[in-house]
């Protein structure tokens, strides 16, 4: 194979289909950061996010034979990552009552950590995670990952109008939470 850095996704995936795991290593390295951004923005920097990230690439590998290339691998990966993150959020909610003290301790730890490193970026991250999952996924894809509104609608399989209205509501909520901090950041 030629230099892995300049090999196209298509070539890499063809090689992976023949059983070449080195090609998949290159592929995972190429998209690792992007998926980390999506998953960690959805779930926070926690062990579950690591597991969801890992599961995203494993699911993609297993469904490679069904991948026809209609959308880019990045879009396909992001869709898997978002769906797995939403499942994890649902699982957390189910377990919240059972593991309430544990969850409380974790939240306190996260709070303590962010108070030490008090900055806008971290507060935005925390504010995003406080949003309802349906708003969170739109914000993560549109604002954090930088997908267009059309791409966001395609990934979430939602009409454009729904994406736009959820985005507007989510931004209004974020602005409300972060308003004092955003006001300080006049440039």
């Amino acid at each position, binding site marked *: 194979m030629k230099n892995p850095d300049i090999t196209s996704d298509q070539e890499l995936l063809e090689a992976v289909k023949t059983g070449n795991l080195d090609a998949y290593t290159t592929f995972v390295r190429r998209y690792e950061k992007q998926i980390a*951004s999506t998953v960690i923005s959805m779930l926070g920097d926690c062990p579950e996010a690591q597991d969801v990230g890992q599961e995203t690439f494993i699911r993609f590998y297993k469904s490679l034979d069904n991948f026809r290339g209609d959308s880019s691998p990045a879009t396909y990966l992001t869709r898997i990552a978002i769906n797995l993150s939403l499942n994890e959020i649902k699982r957390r909610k189910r377990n919240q009552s059972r593991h309430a003290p544990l969850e409380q301790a974790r939240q306190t730890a996260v709070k303590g950590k962010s108070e030490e490193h008090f900055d806008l970026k971290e507060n935005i991250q925390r504010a995003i995670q406080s949003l309802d999952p349906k708003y969170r996924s739109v914000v993560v894809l549109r604002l954090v990952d930088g997908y267009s509104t059309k791409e966001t609608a395609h990934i979430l399989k939602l009409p454009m109008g729904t994406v736009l209205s959820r985005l*507007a509501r989510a931004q209004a909520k974020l602005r409300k939470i972060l308003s004092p901090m955003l006001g300080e950041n006049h440039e």
Partner: protein
Amino acid sequence: MNKKIQKLIYKSFDTTLSAREKQQLDRATQESAEVQKQLHELEILRRTAAKQSASFQPNFTERVVKTIAATKAQVQDDFFAALSFMFRRIAIAGAVSVILMLSVTLFRDNSSTIISDYAQSQTTLDELIVPSVTTSLEELL
């Protein structure tokens, strides 16, 4: 704040406004400090959100590929185990049916041994042809 202007503020970030909408928003921005503030805050919010960078723990890729390799090996092992299990079942069923068929044959022919049963069928060519010819000649005479 006017709801329509509020809607235009959000719309301006995601889609291209028509000339009329743009004019309305520009006018509102010039006239209202609140609109200015909201546009500014949203811009900071969007810019900072876009700068969010996150990464998985070190050796993430290696862990993913190792898990896939282990799963593949497991699937292969499972396949051969299933194959061997199936073969064993077929072999046992085959052996049982051969024994059954043999037993049925022995009982039906009322033979005590396989050898005697086998021996009965050993007729020579002479036995088959000559007696019948002799009989027919005697009858003729």
